[in-house]
């Protein structure tokens, strides 16, 4: 009897002694984390490239001038639309974590309910992004590479801060410099928000898949909702990236 106690107590003392995960997580969940880490490095590389380009440009478009339109409400509402997008994404992150929470308790009905709300949030966010891209496509006359020539019929001066004499001086007297900044700004913007939007799209698809599995009782039979947790990690990561994209493009 005393021998049994010793044998069962031993693995608990030695975390790295084998027979259990020293991190107390399953292989799949740990690898999800490492995948997200590599994805974070990819997004980080994009944003740092953006930051470097911005740092060596003497002028840069002003977010308050570029992002000022709101559907049906007019053209002079800086940052309002992107605030709505941010709100939608944070909200969908909350519904996702509530789905994960319900999964911990094996509560199938609530997992399905919150996953459905998360999918709706994701689709709303994508719809907003489609609107924003379409709007900027109209403003710029194209998506990538719309600013390659100093063309009077194609003014980019409106994207710069009109209240700064220094900025306006460069825009007026060195239009090539201003054109090149505008060119870089929009190329980075469409690349990075596009890459993020791609992640949101695949996240929505994953969420639909696990919603179908949940409703069909796949996870109930399996005895745990870890797949909801893993997809949840991915979804929160997408929200996390948006926090940085929001700061880099709309605030700084």
């Amino acid at each position, binding site marked *: 009897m005393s021998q049994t106690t010793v044998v069962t107590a031993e693995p608990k003392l030695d975390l790295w002694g084998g027979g259990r995960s020293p991190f107390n997580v*399953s292989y799949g969940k740990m690898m999800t984390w490492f995948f997200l880490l590599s994805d974070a490095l990819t997004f980080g590389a994009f944003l740092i490239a953006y930051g470097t380009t*911005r740092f060596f440009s003497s002028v840069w478009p002003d977010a*308050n001038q570029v992002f000022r339109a709101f559907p049906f409400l007019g053209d002079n509402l800086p940052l309002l639309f992107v605030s709505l997008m941010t709100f939608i994404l944070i909200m969908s992150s909350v519904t996702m974590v509530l789905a994960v929470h319900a999964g911990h308790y094996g509560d199938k009905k609530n997992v399905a309910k919150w996953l459905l709300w998360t999918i709706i949030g994701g689709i709303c966010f994508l719809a907003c992004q489609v609107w924003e891209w379409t709007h900027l496509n109209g403003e710029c006359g194209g998506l990538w590479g719309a600013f390659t020539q100093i063309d009077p019929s194609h003014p980019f001066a409106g994207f710069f801060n009109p209240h700064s004499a220094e900025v306006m001086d460069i825009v007026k007297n060195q239009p090539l410099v201003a054109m090149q900044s505008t060119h870089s700004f929009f190329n980075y913007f469409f690349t990075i928000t596009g890459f993020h939007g791609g992640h949101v799209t695949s996240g929505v698809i994953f969420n639909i898949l696990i919603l179908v599995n949940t409703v069909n009782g796949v996870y109930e039979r399996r005895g745990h909702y870890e797949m909801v947790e893993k997809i949840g990690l991915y979804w929160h990561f997408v929200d996390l990236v948006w*926090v940085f994209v929001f700061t880099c493009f709309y605030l700084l």
Partner: protein
Amino acid sequence: MSSHSNNNSIQHLYEGDQSKLYSGVMSHHHDVNSDESKAQVKRIWKIFWILLAITLVEVVMGMKLSHSMSKGLVNFFFLALTVLKAGYIVSVFMHLGDEIKGFIVTVLIPLVLFVWFIIAFLADGGFWLRMNNESSVRHTTAVHATK
């Protein structure tokens, strides 16, 4: 009876699916209406309100203060608030704060690389900025273009 210890019954449920040990049968809570569950849900909503408040502060700063306050100070606030938001999302929503310390450290250590990246690339950008400003080619091209 003693040979059928607790361990064996777990082994029976394990069936080769590791996840059952760490996210499944072992750690299952059963009552979704328990106080523990309600406290967790309350915490999630609390973090939501914090994130929303931080975002509103950022947007107001971006609209009102970005042209009147010192640019460096505004940027410092933006970056600090961003890191704070990221911390809440990773620690609470992604439950990294609930993992054991060894795992938290393993996930976070590679991110230290970003410190080096940012310093290196800003230094590079600073060099290019000086090159661009001093380059006579830039200025002459610009003058040609306006003519």
